[in-house]
């Protein structure tokens, strides 16, 4: 039996920088008849601290997030492969020896899904009746692709969008160079990696780069903007929530 209620962990980047992607997620989930809970008090999953080596800080943030998410028994949907990977794989590692948060982390991890993964693998849906006229490329973000092992789900969803042409992205599986604080600490290497990604995006001749992680999209989008490229970025939910007129109907 597919669930009837989900909890949405929106992520701090969607909360602050790209709320439109979050609203698109809500519309897609509600369109499937799901009740969407938004657990109050959610902030950041703590991944930047964890990746920065500040594991005690990361644990404090993870405890907070686990408290927030454990108030409801509903599965958790996260519109980010990276944050989902943090909760699914790294929370249980951070609390491996913790008598209270260890079991909690394993419970939450067992019912946490990235957005596209949830729709295809849990809800068993790939055709959402979306319509979007245009040529896009799909950028598989690293933590979604190699962390969670999710690649088919977003591609299936995109394949069923009416009017959509998905062009091949050369070097699609290569990292865009974001890497969280890496983009600041090792900004020159990150910038060189981004250049390669942007050259590939431009060579594909698409109008839009689509992904499942706002973080990578901000990085790619900021690079496209700096180049003056006319290519835009969209979270996959923003495409899937597009209606017959090719526009999102809730804004």
């Amino acid at each position, binding site marked *: 039996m597919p669930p009837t209620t989900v909890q949405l962990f929106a992520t701090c980047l969607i909360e602050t920088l790209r709320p439109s992607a979050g609203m698109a997620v809500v519309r897609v989930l509600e369109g499937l008849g799901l009740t969407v809970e938004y657990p109050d008090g959610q902030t950041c999953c703590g991944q*930047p601290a964890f990746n920065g080596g500040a594991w005690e800080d990361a644990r404090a943030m993870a405890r907070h997030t686990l408290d927030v998410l454990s108030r409801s028994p509903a599965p958790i949907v996260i519109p980010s492969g990276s944050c989902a990977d943090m909760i699914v794989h790294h929370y249980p590692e951070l609390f491996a020896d913790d008598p209270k948060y260890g079991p909690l982390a394993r419970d939450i991890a067992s019912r946490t899904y990235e957005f596209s993964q949830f729709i295809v693998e849990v809800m068993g849906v790939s055709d959402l009746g979306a319509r979007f006229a245009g040529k896009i490329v799909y950028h598989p973000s690293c933590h979604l692709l190699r962390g969670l092992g999710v690649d088919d789900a977003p591609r299936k969803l995109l394949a069923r969008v009416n009017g959509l042409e998905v062009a091949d992205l050369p070097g699609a599986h290569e990292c865009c160079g974001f890497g969280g604080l890496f983009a600041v600490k090792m900004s020159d290497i990150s910038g060189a990696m981004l250049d390669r990604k942007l050259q590939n995006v431009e060579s594909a001749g698409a109008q839009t780069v689509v992904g499942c992680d706002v973080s990578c999209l901000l990085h790619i989008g900021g690079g496209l903007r700096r180049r003056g490229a006319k290519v835009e970025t969209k979270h996959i939910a923003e495409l899937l929530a597009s209606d017959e007129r090719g526009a999102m109907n809730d804004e």
Partner: protein
Amino acid sequence: MSSPFHSRVAGALVDDNLHIALNRVTSRFTTLRLNALASLPHADSVRDRARAIRAHTLSRLDIYLAQFADSVEAAGGRVHWAADAHAANRIVAEIAKAARARTVVKGKSMVSEETHLNPALEAEGITVVESDLGEYIIQLAGETPSHIIAPAVHKTKEQVGQLFHEKLGIPLTHDPALLTAAARAKLREVFLTADMGISGVNFGVAETGTICIVTNEGNGRLTTSTPRVHVAMMGIERLVPTLDDLSAMLQVLARSATGQKLSVYTSLITGPRRRRPSKQSEGGPGEPDGPDELHVVLVDNGRSRVLGTRLAEILYCIRCGACLNICPVYQQIGGHAYGSVYPGPVGAVLTPALEGVEPWPELPQASTLCGACRDVCPVRIDIPRMLLELRDAGHRAGQTPAWLKLFLPLYQLAATQPALFNFGAAAARWITRALSSNGWLKRLPPPLSGWTDHRDFPAFAAQPFSAQFKNHHKGAKTQRNTKDSS
């Protein structure tokens, strides 16, 4: 930000020849690897088996080392134990002295790079000539390897042509066949006159005392069979229990490294030349060739300290180099920028594992944690996990930059106090919107200038998601809020 590491990186990023060379080789290796693995039936289970063999061997390394040493000696070889690099170099120098060796020919050996063997031998008046073509090139150029299987990968054929023209006095050419022939002619002389050969070891087989060396140039065979004395240097972790296990490792090694099903030469060496038949029944005059002496130098140099720690998995490494070829950071900066003997993802873990985190603060940071290295590793080493472990260790050792140290407690407080989080987000929204034009910022102050050096940064949204979600649900019959259920 201007550490030696960062200056090396800055130099590498603007080195056009480096990028031409790296692109040629890494993309070719990556494609060949995929094809070669596709040709291996049940590749995933072979990789699982290879990993299981490495894990098993390391879990009983003391036992297998003892068995290996006994087997080597039983086959007529001599085993030497080197606790560190200095001891390893001294042992090799003394073997050379005892053999009155003046010229030594070397096969490719990363462990000898690790111990800096060549300068140690040269200080004793011994001439050392590298016989692997890539190693020969960088020895002529006075450089170090930038890749664990393709040491001269950072050089274009045009650069090699120039180098050979200058150092060997041959006419200027960029033709790889002509360049290889020139090196071959020079090396042939060395092989025939060298008193001693030094090789690395790809695998030692505990049950038989066999050492396995794979090469593509045949230099491994000449190095180990022509001179009077053969010295094989190996890290203590490079063992497999049986010949059957060796076959599993060989199935994945060349495929992962160069995309070959098997390297051109796979040599199995058990003991030195036997003057008399090993078994009575065999009769005959004994073996026609081979060295009079075989010495196996087992080098610890920090490895035993890594066993049993959360970094022990890095000792599973079979030195195929696949993680270097696939790594988007390595592809941009090459091997020398890392500054360590072992570059790339494996080097970023192995180096601080062997030498401690203090001398190597940047290596674990030089990764986006994209996971490509873990995916291609023939023995499925979880390199990103260990990079994270090392970042944790580095943070605890005080290596986090000052600005981040200041920021972390605030970030932690905000992320655990939603009211403070919302306040901080509101402040950032106000500032970024005030400073942005058309929704983007072109410049941020340090340290965030690292971001805006290469890309624009978006202003925060006018209304955060949580507020939009609440508006969306206004007017809906039921207020779905987890407050009710908490």
